[in-house]
């Protein structure tokens, strides 16, 4: 979005492709952001609206890249516009269909701690504010029953006959900003393997904290809806673990875990939070102060050590860790455990990289042309990277990265324009 706005402001026509129905990415799922604890949506939505309304930016959401042909200056990108089963030209965004839809399914947006409807927008502030129907969940599309959304829609926008369609965009440059995903709990056997309901990932805890989340911002256990009084947070889950998981540091977890523990304390005054850590990486402006405040004012108990195992024991989760600073084993009977899982590239990035003829590293992150001096260039002229697609980073760095990518495109285009005008003059 940052790149699109920058380029749009510079006078260039920009196409923003997103495979989700609306723009905003991961920040939309967050509750508050560090270090200010500003509301994520309040910071983000002015940007999504600006992007959506920008005269030079064209949104192509719910699209996937099918084919990329050509080269710098004249890329031909074929997009697959996925069938939304809703006519977006007719839809007014009233939301009645979502309200009345009877089918509830586990929502990917809610990361396993909440349900969504078969017809949905990702959030109340979605840009564009047009819903899509999940064809695998919709009762009509799978079983031929229901059709409630069609009945209630005042704009007659539901169209079950819609099909995927293709469209082509001719562009001079491409910026890849595919974001990130998280390491799956199912592969972490020693922390329950995804089978313990009250052991969740950090992003799922964000959804519990979020006022627009499945619990309306109340921190409640997925298992029984009770408010947990003892929460264990485990940093470096599947990060910095070369033996079996990811060797790299995921960069944002120290900060967001401190944020989670602080927000939890602000909501549950008699709650106790324990953070198992290896180091505290708080390298941004105001970050260290934020963490210290968490310890001093919000009483977070930081334990330097790893957790070897945790398991369900009756109503509680037994967490076996160690406190290396006192040299003692620690056993905590927690009500809930939040795992700061490793940041991984988004699904499907490898295939996309092949279509673009750009390189990914052994973990799937896009490889920039030079570690130090070319953080946004791909090595293929005209293709640039932005954000977590190139490696884990926080929001501030992502915005800077996006602007950097936009500036490279602007230089590229200005260069061609200058050369073209020179040759026409000469």
């Amino acid at each position, binding site marked *: 979005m940052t790149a699109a706005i920058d380029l749009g402001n510079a006078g260039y026509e920009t196409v923003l492709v997103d495979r989700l129905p609306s723009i905003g990415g991961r920040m939309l799922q967050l509750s508050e952001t560090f270090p200010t604890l500003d509301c994520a949506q309040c910071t983000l939505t002015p940007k999504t609206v600006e992007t959506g309304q920008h005269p030079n930016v064209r949104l192509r959401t719910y699209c996937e890249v099918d084919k990329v042909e050509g080269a710098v200056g004249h890329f031909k990108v074929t997009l697959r516009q996925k069938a939304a089963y809703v006519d977006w030209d007719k839809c007014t965004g009233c939301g009645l269909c979502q309200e009345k839809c009877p089918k509830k399914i586990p929502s990917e947006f809610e990361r396993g701690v909440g349900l969504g409807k078969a017809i949905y927008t990702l959030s109340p502030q979605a840009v564009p504010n047009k819903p899509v129907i999940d064809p695998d969940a919709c009762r009509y599309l799978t079983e031929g029953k229901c059709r409630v959304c069609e009945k209630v829609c005042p704009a007659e926008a539901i169209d079950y006959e819609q099909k995927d369609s293709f469209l082509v965009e001719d562009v001079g440059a491409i910026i890849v900003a595919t974001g990130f995903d998280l390491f799956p709990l199912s592969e972490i*056997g*020693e922390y329950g*393997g995804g*089978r313990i309901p009250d052991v969740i990932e950090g992003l799922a805890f964000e959804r519990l904290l979020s006022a627009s989340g499945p619990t309306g911002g109340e921190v409640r256990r997925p298992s029984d809806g009770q408010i947990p009084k003892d929460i264990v947070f485990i940093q470096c889950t599947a990060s910095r673990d070369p033996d079996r998981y990811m060797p790299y540091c995921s960069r944002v977890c120290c900060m967001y875990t401190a944020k989670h523990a602080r927000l939890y304390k602000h909501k549950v005054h008699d709650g106790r939070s324990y953070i198992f850590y290896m180091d505290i990486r708080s390298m941004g402006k105001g970050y260290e102060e934020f963490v210290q405040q968490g310890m001093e004012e919000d009483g977070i108990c930081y334990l330097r050590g790893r957790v070897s195992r945790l*398991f*369900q*024991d009756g109503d509680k989760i*037994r967490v076996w860790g160690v406190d290396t600073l006192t040299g003692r084993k620690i056993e905590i009977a927690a009500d809930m455990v939040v795992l700061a899982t490793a940041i991984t590239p988004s699904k499907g990035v490898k295939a996309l990289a092949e279509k673009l003829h750009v390189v990914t590293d052994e973990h799937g992150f896009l490889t920039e042309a030079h570690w130090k001096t070319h953080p946004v260039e791909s090595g293929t002229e005209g293709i640039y990277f932005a954000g977590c697609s190139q490696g884990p980073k926080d929001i501030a760095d992502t915005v800077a990265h996006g602007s950097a990518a936009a500036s490279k495109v602007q230089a590229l285009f200005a260069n061609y324009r200058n050369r073209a005008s020179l040759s026409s003059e000469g």
Partner: protein
Amino acid sequence: MDYLYFPGCTLYTKAKNLDTAARECAKLVGLELRELPNWTCCGATFPLATDNLMALLPPSRILANAMKEGENLTTLCSVCFNVLRRTLHLLETDAEKREKIFDFIEMEYSDGFHLRHYLEILRDEIGFDTVGEHVKRDLKGLKVAPFYGCMLLRPFEEMRFDDKENPRIFEDFLRSIGSEPVDFPYKIECCGSFQSVGAPDVATECGYSILTSAMRNGAEAVVTTCPLCQFNLDTKQKEMKEKYLDFSGIPVLYFSQLMGLSFDLPRETLDFARNDVDPLPLLEKKGVIDGGTDR
């Protein structure tokens, strides 16, 4: 199905009950066990130092001997299995060490040798369904907690026995013979191992935690496949009772004894007399055996 069989030191002495029952059951399910001639002690631990080749000689010699005698080898004791499997893995992957060791013991190495635990053979080659077909005595859904211990599963990359955090092979076995497996979080924790000699109180604590966890989750009996686990969980219950006065105790059996019971083998074969905590009262209470005439 033919397999060379490595008993290990305790299987003919203290753990005879594990051995006899396993052999008799093997006959019934079509597994021919041929004792490895001239076998010796496995060494009991895989060396912690990677350059300690001397400690690898006993298990290497056993494997070399087995390679000479046949194509595959099985064992029952978890510790022996751990040492042998890790040694075989090292011999398969480290050509330099393999050459040094085999030059020293002056024996031949053969590729493609198979080493499997008795339970793996049941699972992969005979099939638990076939095992189930030989069940003649109803175990009346006896709630049994399988204790894996650590030697069967770890280190995972070398042992490759089952999922190291949530293994299922023992549970599948127990179900096939008509008992009800009980899942409990301590099933993969260490029994205390040799600490029962060096720091007996530590081992008592380990065993107590394991048994009480099993009991809390509804177990009526515990099964093992390792003479050392058996010692720490069965024999040491005396110490546990002395320390924890309200500890009621629980029968701990070898899996082969339970298997033999379900196959209705004669009582002498099952050798329950060697179990320090007598399982007969439990079995009688559950109606698995008849108190009086059932012999």
